[in-house]
């Protein structure tokens, strides 16, 4: 038996401008995500490593100087 639902299928073309809008919006969202990732995740991580290293160096220096100041018994 013929299915009338198959006969009412539309066959319209989507305007090209929609594709441009979709691609533009995706690129913009990707750029925003990358920038947010750079400034909110990667940058703080780098800063953390830098400070950790500096603090580590300072601590080592302090330890060295403390050892130097210890009087010989």
């Amino acid at each position, binding site marked *: *038996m*013929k*299915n*009338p*639902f*198959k*006969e*009412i*299928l*539309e*066959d*319209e*073309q*989507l*305007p090209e401008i*929609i*594709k441009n*809008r*979709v*691609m*533009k*919006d*995706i*690129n*913009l*969202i*990707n750029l925003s995500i990358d920038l947010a990732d750079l400034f909110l995740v990667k940058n703080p991580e780098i800063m953390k490593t830098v400070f950790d290293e500096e603090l580590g160096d300072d601590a080592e220096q302090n330890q060295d100087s403390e050892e130097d100041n210890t009087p010989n018994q």
Partner: protein
Amino acid sequence: MDYPRDQDKKELPKATSLSDEELVKLILETKESSYYGILYDRYADKVYNRCLRIIPQREEAQDLTHDLFIKLYYKLKTFEFRSSFSTWLYRFAYNFSLNYLNRKHKIKREKELELNEYTDVEVLEIDDSQLFELKADKLKDVLELINPNEKLILLMKYQDEFSIKEIADTMQIGESAVKMRINRAKKRVLEEYKNLRH
């Protein structure tokens, strides 16, 4: 904005010959929007025509298709490669349209509950042959008169030939509820069709 580099220019023609599933993998690996453009070209018209069946206004259907393709890009990672990409995409499109319709018509919880109570009332099962006897042009008019959710479920079943399980997954309801809703929608169509003739 992103402009294709020389390497991409060479890679793109190769990507056009890939299957949908391979293309999805490539998009997920590279996050390259130009590959997504190929997938868009393959399905944009099909998805647009599905949106158009649910929302007959062209501009609104175009906006819906635009929003759908943006959401789809970020939802590609949820595709589990279990079914074909096209089936998954059409289910995604129906789900997206359904959410849009519900937001638009602001179906409240109470109304939904009322609707569920109504589904519990048994309706005599209507045979598909009764539906297939209808004239296509009149059926099109009738589908505009019934509830959009009922229209959607009938289109999934009879136009895209989704299984009951696929409809249940798409609508996030049980299989028995799907069967009841289909039967209720068929009853509504037959009633409206009868009224249209008089």
